[in-house]
């Protein structure tokens, strides 16, 4: 997994786009990338980016911006 991909994965986990169940890399949907792509698309949609499902430069630029530590997507009392 190239570094940008693993960083992107932990970013999507941290802010609630990737659910805990897909944490392990041997998860089939993770292995075939569909849950990762789905999470990436959700992130792109939430940020108003073009929804491509690709980890393109603009998406990575957004992931590198300073931000609030509260999650974007999960619904727990303590985010």
């Amino acid at each position: 997994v190239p570094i940008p991909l693993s960083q992107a994965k932990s970013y999507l986990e941290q802010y609630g786009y990737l659910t805990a169940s897909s944490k392990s890399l041997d998860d089939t949907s993770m292995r075939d990338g569909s849950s990762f792509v789905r999470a990436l698309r959700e992130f792109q949609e939430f940020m108003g980016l073009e929804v491509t499902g690709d980890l393109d430069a603009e998406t990575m630029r957004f992931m590198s911006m300073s931000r609030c530590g509260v999650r974007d997507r999960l619904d727990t009392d303590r985010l």
Partner: protein
Amino acid sequence: KFNVGPKWPTKNLTYHIASYPKFLRREDVDVEIERAFAVWSEVTDLTFTKKSSKKVDIEIRFEVGDHGDDDSFDGRGKILAHAFLPTDGDVHFDDAELWTIGIGPKNSTNLFVVAAHEFGHSLGLRHSNYYTALMGPLYREYDSNFKLHEDEKAGIQSLYGSKTTTTQPKVPLDDSICTNPKMDTVFQSDQGETIFFKGDKFYKVTDGSVVRGYPKLISERWPGLPSNIDAALTLNKFTIFFKGNLLWCYLGREMLFGFPQSISFNFYFIPDHLDAVLYKGGNEIFFFKGSQFWAYPNPNQPLAPTMISPGMINQHWKGVPDNLDAAFMDSYGYTHLFKGDEYYRIDPMKFNVDLDQDAYPKPIGPIWLGCK
């Protein structure tokens, strides 16, 4: 498109600042935190009272790295702060950031913007996917013309209702201003507020009365600005204050580098110790002193004044007296000229005093300050 979480069972909340950032003055932090809470109290009936004890609704801390809530901070940049939803509500700021007030240097982080965002979480709002809105997850640069996005206004009002207490108390908190409403100067701030200066204090005025919580110290809002200012105006987001032979220039709360400067260095032919200054949004700035006035081109124009020699006030501004105290134009285009405890209003389309059925001058106290 707001999404909300739990909310507080009461609208009257308390907060405590348990620790401060390393590189900002405590009193400056107190003011910015109060302003950040005001973003939400201005559109709802929520009130926020600062307490010195720890037993409060919202605890505010500035921490670095691991600070005991299994959500460590990560050094400069990346995560700036986080907050807990009601009824926990606490807010933690990463003190590894370079926190600033107003427009700061590159790679700095504006405290007001981040605090207003985190307090949105403390009150029950989650991230908005209008990514330019205050509740968007990504940091957005400070804008002195900051306005709450309609989406987050709808969000907070869905939790706590709209603001119902629109009528301000008619009599200002210390009504000494009513016995002597003579002003040093009056101007519109870069945020569109109507501000009255008197001595070392300033009053924010709206709807014919002083806003609750005012007067405040001038130095609190404009650090470095002296008392007893002669004149002030806001031009292209910059607020310029005149006193004696000097002028100060501010962007938001920040005095620009290299100020104060002499008036004559910036405005040829304009005298010291002005009475009043007026910008009417056109190409000219009007300077008043004694019985004379100067019409000066907007600094974005060539520096030579349109009038080489000063004009006589009573010849150009019918009905307006000499030796004014203050002058400003409101957002409806009316010019208001103050002298002693009275003021005159100039029709936007004419130069002479507004001659409608209510003859001017009118008393300042009851009409502007809510005095009986």
